[in-house]
């Protein structure tokens, strides 16, 4: 069963709009949550990450929010650009565990101009 779930599966937004991707998880031992961005023909690359001791982390137009009580996190992209069109994966892992990052199913984002 999928331990990390993402929604939506795909999303189209207009250039300049705000993109919101969401993710939920089940394992309460997870305490590290990165978001990876993957362009066609490339491997995923780290975009932004957050630890469970924080509830928000911002990096330019990208912000990730974490809600420990609800076991949910989200990625917000403000002023979305066509160059942001990619597949986004949330992931989770636990400190002290095996070297095992669990990925969500991914969200394919298309930003239309």
């Amino acid at each position: 069963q999928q331990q990390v779930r993402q929604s939506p599966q795909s999303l189209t937004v207009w250039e300049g709009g705000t993109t919101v991707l969401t993710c939920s998880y089940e394992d309460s031992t997870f305490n590290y949550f990165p978001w990876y961005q993957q362009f066609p023909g490339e491997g995923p690359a780290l975009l932004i990450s957050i630890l469970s001791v924080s509830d928000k982390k911002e990096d330019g137009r990208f912000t990730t929010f974490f809600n420990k009580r609800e076991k949910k996190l989200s990625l917000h992209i403000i002023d979305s650009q066509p160059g942001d069109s990619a597949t986004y994966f949330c992931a989770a892992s636990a400190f002290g565990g095996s070297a095992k990052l669990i990925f969500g199913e991914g969200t394919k984002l298309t930003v239309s101009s």
Partner: protein
Amino acid sequence: ETAVFQTPNYHVTQVGNEVSFNCKQTLGHDTMYWYKQDSKKLLKIMFSYNNKQLIVNETVPRRFSPQSSDKAHLNLRIKSVEPEDSAVYLCASSYFGGGCAETLYFGSGTRLTVL
């Protein structure tokens, strides 16, 4: 800037053949991984090696075998491929695989098509 190199980029083969994929990282990392990405983009870890030692071996068919000559190289061999092996195989590396908040650096993948 590419630091995890995978070859070949694409490979087409027939059921029952053996294939090998190569991966090299120039980041000086201790841990390397193989992930399988299926047609729905789902990423699943297959193996991870820390300094040439196998530390994670997910439930994958026995026809899959990783091979590591040193901490910078991790190859993947598939004996007698099956149609369900068609996927993109992604190699990755990280500085430390001990459950810390390490960043994974991925190669661009090898796309395998089994006819």
